[in-house]
C-alpha cells in the first residue's frame, strides 16, 4: 500500500521549491531596502532637523555642498527612480501586458528612468557647484 508522505512546509523546503528569483525581483528588493535607509536619512536630515521642516534657499545650497550629503542624495535619486520605474513595469506585467506592447513599454520606461536620473544628477550638480 502506498503511503502518502505528509509534505514538509519548513522554511528551508519552501525556499527550495520556489522558482529561482529573477534579477528584476532581486533588484526591486535590494533597491527597496536601500531606499528604507536612504529615505529615512533624507527625511530626517531635510525635514525633521530643521525648524519649520523646510530649509531656506541658502540652507539647501549649503547642505547640498556637503560631499556626503551630495553622494547620499545622488544614490537616493538612482535607487528611487529604479525602484519606481521597475515597479510600474511590474504592475504592467500584472495587468497582462505582453509581447510587442510590453517591449515598447519597457523601452519607454527605461528611457524615462535614464532621463530622470540624468536630469536629477544635473540638478544636484548645478545646485551644489553651478554658481
Amino acid at each position, binding site marked *: 500500500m502506498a503511503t502518502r508522505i505528509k509534505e514538509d512546509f519548513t522554511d528551508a523546503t519552501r525556499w527550495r521549491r520556489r522558482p529561482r528569483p529573477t534579477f528584476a525581483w532581486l533588484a526591486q528588493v535590494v533597491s527597496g531596502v536601500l531606499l528604507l535607509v536612504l529615505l529615512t536619512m533624507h527625511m530626517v536630515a531635510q525635514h525633521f532637523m530643521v525648524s519649520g521642516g523646510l530649509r531656506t534657499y541658502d540652507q539647501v545650497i549649503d547642505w547640498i555642498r556637503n560631499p556626503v550629503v551630495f553622494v547620499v542624495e545622488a544614490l537616493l535619486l538612482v535607487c528611487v527612480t529604479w525602484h519606481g520605474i521597475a*515597479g510600474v513595469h511590474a504592475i504592467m506585467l500584472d495587468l497582462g501586458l505582453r509581447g510587442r506592447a510590453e517591449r515598447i513599454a519597457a523601452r519607454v520606461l527605461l528611457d524615462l528612468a535614464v532621463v530622470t536620473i540624468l536630469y536629477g544628477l544635473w540638478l544636484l550638480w548645478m545646485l551644489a557647484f553651478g554658481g
Partner: protein
Amino acid sequence: MMRADPRRGRKRQRRSRWLDPRGRHLGTWAFVANRLTGLGLVAYLYLHLVILSTLLRGPEAWDGLVELFRHPLVLAFDLLLVAGLAFHGFNGLRLALVGSGLLVDRHKAMLAAAAILVGLVTLVAAVRIFA
C-alpha cells in the same frame, strides 16, 4: 464563424482577476495597496523634481514656494505622503520576506506589525509637522 483568440481571453481574465475585489484576503488587499501607494509615490517623485527645479530660479522663487508649503492643506498632504511612504516601505519589506519564502506563516502578524509602525511614524510626523 470566427473563433475567439484564447490569448485575449486569458489576458482579460488576468486583468479582471487583479481588479476583482470578490473573495480577497487581507494579504491581497495589502499587496494591491502597496502597488497603489507605489504609483502615487512615483507620481510624487516627478512632482518633487519639478518643485526642486525652482531652486535654479534663485532664492526669491524658492523662499516664496516655502511660504506656500506652510499652508495647512500642503502640510496635510505632507502627512499623507509620510504615511504612504511608511506603508509602502514596511509592507514592501513584508512582501519581500513572504516572496522569498521567509516567515510565510507569520504574514498576518507582520502586516499587523507594519500597520503599528505606520501608525507610529505617522504620529511622530504629525507632531513634527503641526506642532
